[in-house]
Structure formats: C-alpha cells, structure tokens
C-alpha cells in the first residue's frame, strides 16, 4: 500500500495557488463546497515516488483571524485536520504582505514548506530574492517557482516528500516577538500546554492576547481562568505600550515580515516594461477607466449575445427538427410520449441557454479575473454599488446576471457577509438575463421600436437600484467596505481558466438541469390532462382584470417560470400568429405591461434552485413571492397609468 501524505496549500489570494494546485493534481481533482458553506473546496490527488499525495487547496486569505468564512475555514482545517505538510504559496513580488501570513501559519506549528511563486513577476518589478537566506531566517524550505510555466513544481514535490520523511515538526520554528510580549506568551503557553487543547499552545496564547473571541470561547469551556489571565496580561501590554494589545501584535508581525523582506530582497535592474503599470493607470482612470470598462462590457455582451443567439437558434432547430420527429415516431402521440417529450424539451431548453451563453460568459469572466482586470472593475463600480449597501466586488455577479441569473447567484459567494450575499442575490434576480432581453427585444423592441426597448431596460436598472436600496435599508447590519489587493496585471493561465470555467459550468448544470427537466415534464402533464384552460380561467382575475392582458397570457407566464423566453415563444403559438401586434387586446400598452411583468414576476425555476442552494429555501421563497407580488402590482399600475395618458 502506498503511503498517504495529506498536503494543504495555503496563501494570500491571487498568488498562483490554484495554478500550483492544477499542476500538482492534473485531472485528478474534485471541486465542491466546504460542508455547509458556500466557499469552494478543491481537492486532488497525485502519486509521487511511491506516495499518494492528497492535496487540498485552501481558500486564499490574508490572515488567520476569522474575519471571513474563508479565514475560518483555513484556520479550522489546519487546526482540526492537521495536514502532514503545509505548502505556503508566497507571491515573491509582494513579499512583505505575504510573509505576514507566513508568520501566522508558522505559529500553527505544522510542518511547512514555502513555494516562492511568481519570481518572474518579482524580477520584472526589480526584485530578486535570496532564497537561501530566506530559508535560514525562517527555518523553512523555500522553493522558487513560476507556476504558470511549471517551473519548480518537481522540486516542490521532492521537498515535500523530504519534509514528510524527516517528520519535521516545525516546533520552535517561529518568529519571536519582543520580550514584553514573549514573556506573557510563555506564561499562557505554560498554562495551556498541559490541558490538551487542540490548538497549538503558542498559537492559542497569541490569539488569546489578540482577543480572538472564537478561541476565547473554546478555552472558556476548558478553563475560564486561562482567559482571565490572558485578559490581564493583554492589559499589561496595553499599559506598557499605550496601544491596544492586538495592534501591538499585528504591528510586530508586520515589522518582522518587513525586516525579513528587506533582508532577502535584492534590487535588480528592473526589466519591467512599464506596460502593466500603464495598463493599471488607464483601467482605473476616472475617465478612461470607465470608458474602457463600458466599451469592454458592451463588446463582450454584444458578441456573446449575437453569436450566442445565432448558435442557440441553430441548436434549437437542430434538436427540434431531428428529435421531435424521432420522438413522436417512437412513442406515437400517447401520454407517455408527450411527457417524455416534455422532459426532452427541458434538456433542449437548458442546453440552448447553457452552451451558447453561459459557457462563453464564464470563460471570459475567469479570463478577465485571472488577468487582474476584474479587481479594477470592482474598484470602478464601488461607488455605485454602495448605493445598495454593497461594495465594488458585488458588481461581478451582477454582471454575470445579464447572461444568466443562476451563475450570478452562485457568484455572490465572493461577498464577505451573509447580509451582503442576501442583498446581492436579491438584486441579481432582478437583473434582466439573456432570456429576458430576448423578451424585451422581440416584443417591445420589435413592435414598438428600439427606443422603447432601451427605455424598458433603463427602467429595469432603475428598479434594481430602488429595490436594492430598499433591501439595504430594511436589512439590519452595517454595510462592509472594500479592501482589496490589486495584483499586477498578468497573462492569464489558460489551463487554470479553462478548469475554473468547466467546474463552474458543471455546477450550473447540476443545479439547473434537473429542475428544468422536471418542470417541463410537469407542464406537459398539465397540458396533456387538459388543465390549461381551467388554469387560465383561474388566473383571469389577475391577468385580465388587474393587468388588462388577454386571458391566454396567463398560461405563457406560467410556462415562463421554466425559462423566461418561453413567454414570448408561446404567445405566437397560442395566438396562432407571428405578428403579435395584430392580436386584438394586445396593443402597445399591453405589450409593455406584459414585458414588465415577465421581467420581474418570478426568478425562473433554475434561479430559484440556485437561490435555495445559496440562501436556503425560506429566503428563496420570500424573494420569489415578493417579486411575484411586486411584478403584478407594478404591471397593474403601469397599465392604469399608461391608459390614462395614451
């Protein structure tokens, strides 16, 4: 039997962790979520020199204090799962900041090696690093790597095996604080050591002095006295230094990181073509930044929509022409055949959205993210997002929402607090997705003119702003602000981007497909059992009396829950004409009302599924119900207002 080594990758965000992870594990990886959390968990395995190496890619974080879910997960994993070896991925071009995290990792006392990554970018910045000196100061093996080119990966693995074999414990391998702190840490360590606390004693002692509530609570269960002593000791430090104890400790750690960085960094002639700097300046410029962003977004959406629309149409024709005949031949037109065809239609529906729109959008988004552009967009959009109590990063899922609300809901995970995620998913479900854009264009755009379509689009954005602000005001809690590192622009690593795209896409399929298929079958069943007519009569008080729409539109709206563009497609089928303006009782006003209702009335079934996954079924139900009532209410009001004026 091969020996198993459990390895965890840890480091700041955007240091190339996932590239190293991909290099190590290749195709043998599994990406899911941390149990009960919405943070991505990537695991993989590889064989090397007779060892089975299990690798886990921990979330990218800046500290081991639990400010965010990611930080909690990283800390808990290392403390509770005790990986055999930690690989700390360090960005050589931002050494000081990265070392701050390294020093904290060392406090956890696990065997550790450092992958000093992006040494090429560092060199371009004019920084060369004395690896041997760094090893000596830290007492940890340091392997220089350029992960995007696979440089140093083999050496990293060899060092990993070596570290494991030697059974390095990494005890006593840490940076010392100044005496007034060190003495007090020692006192706490003595109290803690005999108690069998699952955190390393030194780490727990430091965190107690820093006032880490999570660890305080855990130790309270063990012995309240220790926490009391820690509070007293922290008070002493505050008295001596005149500063809060946590501030003293954070400062000291940063000072140590700074000192190490300055000792190992050797300035070299900078070969940096100032291009990345220029690019940063332009893309964050108060005028050019926005112009660049808007042009880029228009270009992306225009090409995805036009090419995607064409491709989607092609797929539709292909599936319907070939499959429908085949199906009906196979099952005749019996009830089973109809139901099965319903399911097949569901698959087709899902595919014609997923392949032409979502896949390319994901790819472009992750390409931009890996290059570093997305953080610039977050920067530019921070002010606007603040109006809804969100910060710049929330613009990213919102953007995805214009393609499809499902990945957008999943994308809201990047936000720090539950409150923000809730506001963000709510706002996202109001964003007009590709299907809703089809409705706007093929109804209002086609019959009333493009300017009306544009007006409706702007109206939608206004509603998003108003409802977003409304949600922000009624939800308790404080908005969080943006703090984000903007790393150097770099050429995206295609393999990593493709992998990320694929896993996200796969996740979308898993959420959306079953429900679309189920929903399609169900609606076919309703149709097959002749329930359409009774249902539309049932809806008529709302549809006819309140919204002033033809009775039959109630059915199309019901189908629209599956996929929104069905509302328009079915209109032609049910009215029996492709020139909808000829239909009596479906004039310009009715078209506008119908479109507004279709835009807002409920998230589609796949989006509801994504909502359930992200925020739980109760809140998902509340959002859906709210939007249903809101859309009906709004539609009725618009109907009355417009009839008054026109």
């Amino acid at each position, binding site marked *: 039997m091969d020996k198993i080594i459990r390895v965890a990758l840890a480091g700041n965000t955007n240091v190339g962790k996932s590239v190293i992870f991909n290099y190590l594990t290749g195709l043998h990886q599994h990406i899911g979520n941390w149990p009960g959390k919405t943070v991505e968990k990537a695991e993989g395995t590889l064989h090397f020199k007779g060892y089975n190496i299990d690798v886990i890619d921990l979330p990218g974080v*800046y*500290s081991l*204090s*639990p*400010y*965010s879910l990611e930080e909690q997960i990283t800390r808990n994993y290392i403390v509770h799962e005790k990986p055999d070896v930690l690989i700390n991925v360090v960005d050589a*071009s*931002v*050494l*000081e*900041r990265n070392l*701050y995290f390294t020093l904290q990792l060392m406090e956890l006392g696990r065997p550790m090696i450092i992958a000093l990554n992006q040494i090429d970018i560092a060199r371009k910045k004019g920084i060369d690093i004395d690896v041997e000196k760094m090893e000596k100061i830290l007492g940890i093996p340091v392997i220089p790597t350029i992960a995007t080119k696979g440089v140093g990966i083999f050496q990293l693995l060899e060092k990993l095996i070596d570290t494991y074999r030697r059974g390095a414990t990494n005890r006593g391998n840490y940076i010392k604080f100044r005496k007034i702190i060190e003495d007090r840490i020692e006192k706490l360590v003595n109290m803690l050591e005999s108690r069998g606390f699952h955190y390393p004693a030194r780490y727990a002692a430091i965190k107690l002095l820093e006032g*880490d*509530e999570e660890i305080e609570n855990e130790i309270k269960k063990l012995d309240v006295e220790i926490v009391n002593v820690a509070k007293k000791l922290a008070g002493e430090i505050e008295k001596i230094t005149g*500063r809060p104890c*946590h*501030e003293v400790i*954070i*400062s000291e750690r*940063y000072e140590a990181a*700074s000192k190490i*960085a300055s000792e190992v960094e050797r300035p070299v002639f900078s070969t940096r073509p100032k291009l990345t700097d220029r690019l*940063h*300046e332009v893309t*964050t*410029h*108060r005028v050019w*930044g926005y112009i660049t962003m808007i042009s880029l977004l228009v270009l992306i959406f225009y090409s995805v929509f036009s090419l995607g629309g064409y491709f989607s149409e092609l797929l539709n024709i292909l599936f319907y022409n070939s499959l429908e005949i085949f199906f009906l031949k196979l099952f005749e037109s019996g009830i089973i055949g109809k139901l099965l065809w319903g399911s097949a239609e569901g698959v087709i529906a899902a595919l014609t959205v997923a392949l032409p729109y979502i896949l390319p959008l994901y790819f472009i988004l992750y390409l931009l993210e890996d290059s570093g552009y997305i*953080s610039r967009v*977050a*920067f*530019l959009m*921070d*002010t606007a997002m*603040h109006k809804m109590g969100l*910060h*710049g990063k929330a613009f990213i899922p919102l953007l995805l929402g214009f393609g499809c609300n499902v990945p957008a809901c999943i994308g809201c995970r990047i936000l*720090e*607090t539950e409150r923000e995620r809730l506001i963000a998913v709510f706002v996202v479900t109001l964003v007009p997705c590709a299907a809703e854009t089809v409705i706007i264009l093929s109804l209002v755009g086609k019959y009333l003119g493009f300017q009306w379509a544009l007006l409706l689009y702007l109206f939608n954005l206004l509603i998003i702003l108003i409802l977003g602000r409304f949600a922000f005001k009624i939800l308790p*809690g*404080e908005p*969080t*602000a*943006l*703090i*984000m*590192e*903007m*790393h150097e622009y770099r050429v995206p690593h295609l393999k990593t981007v493709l992998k990320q795209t694929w896993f996200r896409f796969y996740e979308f399929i898993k959420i959306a497909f079953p429900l679309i298929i189920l929903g399609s079958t169900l609606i076919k069943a309703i149709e097959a059992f002749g329930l359409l007519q009774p249902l539309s009569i049932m809806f008529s008080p709302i549809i006819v009396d309140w919204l002033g729409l033809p009775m039959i539109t109630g059915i199309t709206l019901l189908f629209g829950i599956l996929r929104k563009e069905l509302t328009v497609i079915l209109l032609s089928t049910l009215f029996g004409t492709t020139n909808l303006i000829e239909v009596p009782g479906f004039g310009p006003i009715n078209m506008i009302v119908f479109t507004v209702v279709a835009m807002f009335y409920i998230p589609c079934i796949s989006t509801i599924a994504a909502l359930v996954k992200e925020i739980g079924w109760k809140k998902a139900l509340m959002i859906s119900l709210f939007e249903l009532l809101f859309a009906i209410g709004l539609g009725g009001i618009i109907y009355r207002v417009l009839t008054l004026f026109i």
Partner: protein
Amino acid sequence: MSIGEASKRRVPLSALREGESGTVISILKGPGRGRRHGSARCIMEMGLTPGTKVVMISSAPFHGPVVIDVRGSRLAIGRGIAERIIVEIDEKNG
C-alpha cells in the same frame, strides 16, 4: 510647532493627493463592533498598522475608493475606510 500646524499635517488617508505619501497614525473605530471585515483590526491586518508608509496612487471619482501603495502592494480601499485612516503627510510633499 503650533497645534494648528500639527493638525494641518494630519489628515484622513482619503485627503492625500495623487502621488502624495504619508505615515499611518491611527485608525478610527468604524460603525459596528468586534472583529469583522472592515474593522480597524482587519484594516491593520491588511498591512496598515500605525507607522506604515503609504503612497496615494489614485482615487475614483464621485466619492469612490482610493488606490494606495502599502508595503509594496497595491490596495483598493473604500472611501468610508479611507476616511477612518489618519495619516501624517510627509514633509517632502511640501
């Protein structure tokens, strides 16, 4: 140095002009409490401890966030936080 002069040189980070540098003096408490994202402690853990040098790189319009250089890295910081970070403007900036 009179008090007036001293207070003139101490400004919120957000008041630095592009290219101007300063030293972090303190971080004012934000809304809410405890260890959360955006708390003074979290800001310090991102490298903005008192005594740290910062350089203003750029700021977004309409009361937007700022980009600063701190510890060799580029940080984007929301205006709300930037207003809570008190810095002393370096002499050489004039």
